Structures are given as structure tokens and as C-alpha cells.
């Protein structure tokens, strides 16, 4: 073994530049393979299988996917509004354990402002047994005041602190020209939940109804709330109602009723399946990314073969000499295969750095855009398979130059090269 270590280390040192480039290409391939598959699994799991705390989302007639993206992940625009009366009616049903209205339409520096009720803090569990928790020094908003409770990521990014005052901006995308005149005071900051809710600013739903320029069309006619005057329930509208059932099976019944027979609203249920449909639709993207990773891996393996093969001419004398000293053909063959394997192994090891870099960057972007948190260090079968595969493929690639070394004619190559 010491012999092989000596032969391999000296060869790598002698051909340091090409060895480094090859190791880098293997690292890139291995890291890319691990990142693509790990990212696919983690995003799929986070968007389709993760706990979101609700069983279904009730919203305007339209796309279930848009409804889920808008309310669960706080992405996309709202498909429209539904009357307040529908929220009240559904809330009364015995099988509905929790119904929380959401009204959207404003943002603060790109972070979505969601008008809702206090139930979101008192009754809603974003994971089983876990409710939103305020950081020390904060309190829940008062339904009658212009108060705001902000998610941890919002606080981190905007620098807003308790008692800070801010102006909401109209629309879901930040535009400096659309600043509302109303001022909201931060009364509480939530503890991190590692969920999309960390990116949300929660205000009383009444506040969103009364925001300057907002028009309510619950009655079919436009209604603009005036300060100090109550808003009739008939005029009120909500973007969605988030639902939790006493029994998950109730979703099927309600889905039949609302999606099958009704014409006013849409029930997105079950939420995981809606998101799974999205992943099915963009499955080609996964396949393209995987294909690219496989191609990079093939190029990396090819580069192992080429880098060693290209040194064969200059090393013929070395092999001949080793043979003259008593090395068997099989020893020379094994030394080359092991050298290729060593390059693949070193590359695979560096691949973990590449993987951490890619997944870290992807996790940062996904968290910034959706609030979904990915775990860079979450184990995945590809973390074993990709390095092992690269190692085997590297060794296989090494057999081509190894065969050339095996066939080196000793007597001819012992004489100096002209």
C-alpha cells in the first residue's frame, strides 16, 4: 500500500496542474449531483409534505394552486376576493375547527401585509402543538388600532423593531410611489418558525379594509370605508379563508360542495396535493437539471481519463523502469487505476464543499423568496451514491490509460526518449 501511496502522490505532484483541474471538475460534478437531488427532495418535501397548519384554503373561484401559493407561501397574486358572509357561514359549520380570514393587497418593502384576526396567534398551530410566539417585549395587535406584528425574517431584513412606525405600500410588489398615508406601529415580533410566515407582516383585518384607496365590493357595489364609521359586513371582502377541520375527511365533502356544485368559490384541498401537482408540472425542470448534472459528471470522468492518458507518453519510461526494477504488469496497472480513483476520491471529497456552497446559496434564495427553510446538512442517499459513483467511474476511466501502461514495452522504453 505504501508503494501505491508513493507512486500516486508523486504522480499527482508531478502533474499538479492537470490533477487540480481534474479534481475540481470531479468536485463540481459530484457537488452538482448531490445538490440537484438533495434540493429536489427537500423542496418537494417542504412544499408538498411539510406541515402548514391548515387543511384547506377557501378563496375566489379560480386556480387552487394560485390560492395555495398566495396564502400558504405568500407568493403570487390573489385570485380575487370572496364575500365576508362566506367566511362567516363556513366558520359556523361544526366540522370547521378553525377559520381565519386573510386579506392581502399591501406590502412593506416587498414583505406582504396580511390583514387577519387574532385567531392566527391564539388558535392557529403552524405545526402540531406549535403556535406563533412573540419575542420578549412584544404584544399582539389590537383590532381597533393600527398595530402590526411582524415575522422574524421581516424584522431581520427591514430592521423594524417594537414601537417602530412604518407606512404600508399598495400592491404586493414594492413600489415607492404607492405609499399609503397610514402609519402602523410594530407592537410585536414573532419568534422564527422557519416557515413562510416569517416573511409576513400581520395587521388587523379591519386595518386593511380601511387602508386609503382600498375599495370593498362585497355588495357588488364599490364601498370605501370612512374613518370613524363602521363597515357593514355585507360590504366586506376577504382574499381567502384558511381552514382547519375537525376531521380531515370533511375536506372531501366540502370540496364536492364548493368545487363541484358551487360557482362562487374554490376550495384548495388537500394542500399537499395541490403543490404536488405543481411539482408534477415542472418535473421536466428536475429532469433537465439532473441531465445537466449527469453530463457534468460524464465530462469529469472523461477529464480523469484524458488527464492521465495524456501523461502516458512521458511516463512510458517511468513504467518501463518500474518494470525493470521488478514491478509486475499488474502493479503498474493497479497504480494507474488507483491514481484515477484517488483523483475521483479527492474530487468527491471537495464535492461536499461545492454541494454546501450550492445548497447554501439555494437555501438562502428560497428562504428569502418563500420563507421555506432548507437544511444544508440533511442526509440524503445521493451523498453516498454520488461520491461512490464518481469513485467507481473514475476507477473505470483509469483502466484505459492503465491498459496502455500495462502494455508498455520495457526494453524499448528503457532507452532515452529522443
Amino acid at each position, binding site marked *: 500500500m*505504501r*508503494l501505491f501511496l*508513493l507512486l500516486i502522490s*508523486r*504522480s499527482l*505532484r*508531478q502533474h499538479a496542474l492537470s490533477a487540480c483541474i481534474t479534481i475540481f471538475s470531479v468536485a463540481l460534478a459530484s457537488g452538482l449531483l448531490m445538490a440537484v437531488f438533495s434540493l429536489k427532495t427537500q423542496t418537494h418535501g417542504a412544499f408538498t409534505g411539510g406541515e402548514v397548519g391548515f387543511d384547506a384554503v377557501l378563496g375566489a373561484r379560480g386556480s387552487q394552486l394560485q390560492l395555495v401559493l398566495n396564502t400558504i407561501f405568500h407568493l403570487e397574486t390573489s385570485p380575487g376576493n370572496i364575500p365576508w358572509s362566506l367566511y362567516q357561514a363556513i366558520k359556523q359549520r361544526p366540522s370547521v375547527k378553525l377559520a381565519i380570514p386573510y386579506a392581502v393587497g399591501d406590502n412593506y418593502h416587498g414583505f406582504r401585509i396580511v390583514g387577519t384576526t387574532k385567531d392566527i396567534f391564539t388558535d392557529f398551530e403552524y405545526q402540531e402543538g406549535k403556535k406563533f410566539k412573540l419575542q420578549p417585549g412584544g404584544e399582539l395587535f389590537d383590532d381597533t388600532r393600527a398595530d402590526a406584528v411582524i415575522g422574524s425574517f421581516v424584522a431581520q431584513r427591514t430592521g423594524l423593531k417594537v414601537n417602530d412606525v412604518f407606512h404600508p405600500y399598495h400592491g404586493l410588489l414594492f413600489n415607492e410611489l404607492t405609499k399609503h398615508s397610514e402609519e402602523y406601529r410594530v407592537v410585536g415580533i414573532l419568534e422564527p418558525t422557519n416557515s413562510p410566515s416569517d416573511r409576513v407582516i400581520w395587521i388587523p383585518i379591519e386595518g386593511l379594509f380601511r387602508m386609503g384607496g382600498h375599495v370593498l365590493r362585497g355588495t357588488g357595489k364599490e364601498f370605501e370605508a370612512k374613518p370613524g364609521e363602521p363597515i357593514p359586513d355585507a360590504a366586506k371582502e376577504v382574499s381567502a379563508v384558511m381552514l382547519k377541520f375537525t376531521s380531515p375527511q370533511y375536506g372531501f365533502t366540502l370540496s364536492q360542495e364548493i368545487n363541484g356544485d358551487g360557482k362562487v368559490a374554490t376550495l384548495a384541498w388537500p394542500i399537499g396535493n395541490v403543490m404536488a401537482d405543481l411539482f408534477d408540472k415542472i418535473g421536466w425542470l428536475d429532469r433537465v437539471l439532473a441531465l445537466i448534472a449527469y453530463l457534468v459528471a460524464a465530462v469529469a470522468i472523461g477529464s480523469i481519463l484524458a488527464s492521465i492518458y495524456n501523461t502516458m507518453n512521458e511516463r512510458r*519510461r*517511468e513504467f518501463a*523502469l*518500474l*518494470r*525493470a*526494477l*521488478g*514491478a*509486475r*504488469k*499488474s*502493479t503498474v496497472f493497479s497504480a494507474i487505476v488507483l491514481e484515477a480513483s484517488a483523483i475521483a476520491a479527492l474530487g468527491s471529497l471537495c464535492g461536499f464543499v461545492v454541494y454546501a456552497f450550492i445548497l447554501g446559496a439555494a437555501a438562502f434564495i428560497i428562504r428569502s423568496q418563500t420563507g421555506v427553510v432548507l437544511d444544508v446538512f440533511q442526509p440524503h442517499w445521493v451523498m453516498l451514491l454520488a461520491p461512490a459513483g464518481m469513485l467507481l467511474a473514475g476507477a473505470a476511466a483509469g483502466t484505459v490509460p492503465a491498459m496502455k501502461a500495462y502494455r508498455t514495452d*520495457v*526494453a524499448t522504453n*528503457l*532507452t*532515452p526518449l529522443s
Partner: protein
Amino acid sequence: MLVLEISGLKKSFLGPDGQRTQVLDIPYFSLEAGAEAALRGASGSGKSTFLNIIAGILQADSGTVKVAGQEFTELPEAERDLARGRHIGYIFQTFNLLQGYTALENVLLGMHFGRGADRARAETLLEQVGLGERKHYRPRQLSIGQQQRVAVARALANKPELVLADEPTGNLDQRNAEEALALIRETCRRQGAALLLVSHAREILTQFEKVEELDALNRVGAANS
């Protein structure tokens, strides 16, 4: 006791014209254990081919080569390689040191294929050839004469019974050549190894008591020289 015994050795090569050309036809040659002999031969007379056949690097068309009691010509290739590493030390005209390795590693590498790496012995050998202080130098950091000394140390690393030297002073100036030859002979003597040296240099050959003419041994003789 004979360390080398050759009988009925014949070797031919296939030429570009498809014709076989006989280069060696040696009825008999032998060398006593611990003895030294020089073979004189002009360039192209088949000296290197003869040594390569003795070392088992080339295979004879017919005949037998017995080294240290082992019939080389009957051994399978892998065993012949192993036997070469154990029983034969080879000194080349061009030294054939591995450039990426230090002097010590060059000697140790030779040991790996023989009786096993022995760092202490490798260091002792390098000290004996006057390179104790330069054992970590690479070949390009050594003078030509020093490189030849490393080659001598490597050839003797496995305590071989037979040392083959193929024009070992061919690349050296006269002073270095004399020193190198003295070193080779002295080291072989000290290690108890027989020495078979081939050369065409008169000043080298005159120093040996037993000098054989390759053309006289070889029936193909002058026809190919």
C-alpha cells in the same frame, strides 16, 4: 557456484521488411558468484539485448538462462518480474532515475519490488556512495556523477546476487567514469554481488581481469556488429 548460467541462447527480431534477424546465438556463458566480468561489444552488437534477456525483460527464442539457481526462461512473466527484483540489480547507461522522486525514494522504490522497503538500508547505501547528505535531493538537483551513484545504490538495494551494468559510464567524463566504475566494483564486492558489465570503452575494460568479447561468444558475431 554459478550465479549466472546461459546455454543455447538465441534471439532474433522481426524487421520492418517482415524478415527475422538473428542477433544472438550464444552457446554458453557463465559467471561465478561474487565474480566480475566485462563484456566488450561494439554499438549494435546486441549487448543490451543480452543483458535484457538475462534480466528477463526480453524473452529468448530458445535456450536457458539460470540466475541464482532459478530458471528465468521457464518462469511466468509475473514471477520473472519478482525474481528480477530480488536477484538482479540493473545499472543503466542513462541512470534511469525517476525524476519526481528523491534519491532516497528512488532507492526505496527499487526495494519495494524486491525484499521490501528498508529505509535504514537505503540510507546506509546512499551514505556508502557518498550521498548521505543529499538523500532528499531530486535527480535534477544532483550532478551527473551523483545521479549515477544513486543508480548504483538502487541496483544494490535488494542485495542482488547479480548486478548488470549496461555502459554504466557512457554518459560520464573520464574522471567521473573512473570514480563510478570504482564505486560499482567496490560496492558489488562489499555486498558480495557478481558484476557483469558491458561496454565498448577500452579504458573501462582494461580494469577488468576477465574481459570477454561478445562477438566471440555470439555466433551471429561480426555479421551484426
